[in-house]
């Protein structure tokens, strides 16, 4: 594999929980601008891998390097400040804040850094931040709901809102954990369209996904995870043709 323009490099990562090897010998490179999908059956270690990348879990050995910076041992907010943003599987939003505030807060994190004692300016008169937030809400199709309390949204809309919170930070690397899980077909297609549009802007993405339709319409390259190991890596065509993948995973779904 060529090493040019590798943004995220997961090197030789091991992680076990109480003797169970959740991840072993993980070696993964994500190139600038690509959409890299990680697929695999339930319990293959996909979410664990993502959690290692954003500092939620510490690997037992090995390390994760993002653009020359070692992410292992860094705190979540430090990793975010480097430009690595994660969108969670169960929507993590601010339920008591309205939609506009939900999106403005991450933008301020990017603009002001991890802490700023900004006491006397009015939050709602941060015009530029507000404009960006409104734009992002329109982008994900929640444009006219800015005044609504986020907790009252439907689950699908909450996921879209969280996507907006991630996108608003204009991350250098976006990690998406099953962005379409639990969505109706119509919403899934809308999300795929959205993610395609983002791709056109050159944002690097890592997507964990169950839905093969989503994976094959978005991914440039795919890594297949099974039993905590990467069993196959390549373009969608290569992965589709690989017999080990069929055996471990695709066989169940009849692609």
């Amino acid at each position: 594999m060529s090493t040019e323009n590798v943004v995220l490099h997961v090197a030789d990562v091991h992680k076990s929980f109480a003797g169970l090897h959740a991840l072993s010998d993980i070696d993964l490179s994500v190139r600038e601008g690509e959409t890299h999908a990680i697929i695999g059956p339930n319990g293959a270690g996909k979410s664990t891998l993502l959690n290692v990348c954003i500092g939620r879990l510490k690997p037992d050995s090995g390390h994760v390097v993002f653009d020359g910076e070692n992410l292992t041992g860094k705190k979540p907010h430090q990793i975010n400040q480097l430009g690595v943003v994660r969108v969670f599987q169960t929507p993590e939003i601010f339920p008591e804040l309205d939609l506009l505030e939900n999106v403005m807060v991450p933008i301020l994190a990017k603009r002001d850094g991890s802490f700023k004692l900004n006491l006397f300016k009015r939050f709602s008169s941060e015009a530029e931040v507000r404009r960006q937030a409104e734009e992002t809400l329109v982008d994900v199709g929640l444009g006219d709901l800015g005044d609504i309390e986020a907790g009252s949204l439907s689950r699908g809309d909450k996921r879209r809102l969280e996507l907006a919170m991630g996108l608003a930070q204009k991350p250098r690397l976006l990690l998406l954990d099953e962005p379409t899980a639990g969505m109706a077909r119509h919403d899934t297609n809308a999300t795929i369209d959205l993610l395609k549009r983002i791709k056109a802007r050159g944002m690097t993405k890592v997507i964990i996904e169950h839905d093969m339709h989503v994976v094959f319409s978005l991914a440039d390259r795919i890594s297949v995870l099974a039993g905590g190991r990467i069993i196959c890596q390549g373009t969608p065509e290569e992965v589709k043709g690989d017999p080990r993948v069929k055996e471990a995973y695709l066989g169940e779904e009849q692609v």
Partner: protein
Amino acid sequence: MTRPTAMGDWILFICFSVVVLAMPFWLAPFGADYPDLMQKFAIFGIFAIGFNLLFGLTGYLSFGHAVFLGVGSYAAVWSFKLLTMNIVPAMIFGIIVSGVFAFLIGFISLRRSGIYFSILTLAFAQMSYNLAYSVLTPITNGETGLQLTLQDARSLDAMAGIEVTRSLPSTTLFGIKTSGLPGFYICAVVLIIAFFIAMRITRSPFGTMLRAIKSNQTRMSYTGFNTRPYLLWAFVISGMYAGLAGSLMAVTDPLAGAERMQWTASGEVVLMTILGGAGTLIGPFIGAVFIKYFENIFSSFNEQILHRFFDALPDGLENVLVSVTSLFVGEGWHLTLGLMFMIVVIFLPGGIMEGVRRIGKLFSRKPEKVVAKAVEASGAQS
């Protein structure tokens, strides 16, 4: 949901100022228009507004905020003793010293959240309370409390040539005596300034971050925020408010005792904030007025007053009613307070402010909906 506008905030601020400054007039019918009590309203209003900046915005429940009240009082009295009887340095000194205390206590307590945070703050408060009675007696004067004496240095006053001869000097604001009604107006102006600052903080990006922390702290760290300094600053600011309130206590009555730091005092400000409405701007002040009013007025009722109140009724009934109601007044006012608190928490979890909001909604709704609601309500009752 409507977003608070700058215009709306100014209107709220002006209304608040008018209501506070007009207290001597509108409190007269309630028998609460004497300066002593009104000063308490203002001082505890500041205390509760500051407490709400921590509890209402971040959701971190401090159970030891009275420490800062006590520290503010001691600092102010020391300022009177060593520097000058002018209250301005005393208040500044009170704010700074309590801010330092809040930084130290907050730095350690904020390593934990939820109930553990509350317990840590409570432990610090009890520790400070006991220290004030024992080891720190040279600073706090132990059980007697810290008082002014004729031998105090008062270096700034001495330099200005103000001599103290026979009687103890009284606190002043550049020559204006700060006891009685002027004392109330000083407290009221400070309260209005404190309210204004609290309002600005609540509406600022910083305040919004605090609300976001309350809403989902984990998410905040994955959004790129270091939540610790946000919480610590909220804790320090709220401690400074308490210190200011404490120094005002010393301003209106220049002595300081350790009982101000007792856990009951810490509990009281929690009650005030929840009763009025945590997280709202004016709720904490309303809660403070409510509790201080009941504490001072209800507790002064005795059986004679009750007898007079039920005078029109037949003798037997009058005696029964008096003996029942006497349980709730005088010494028993805590019972009334407890009942009120339970009713508010069970039926109006958002405090008195939620009640106000609900009533407001009822009137702003379209007429047919109100009718439907009324029918529904009467149906539920029968």
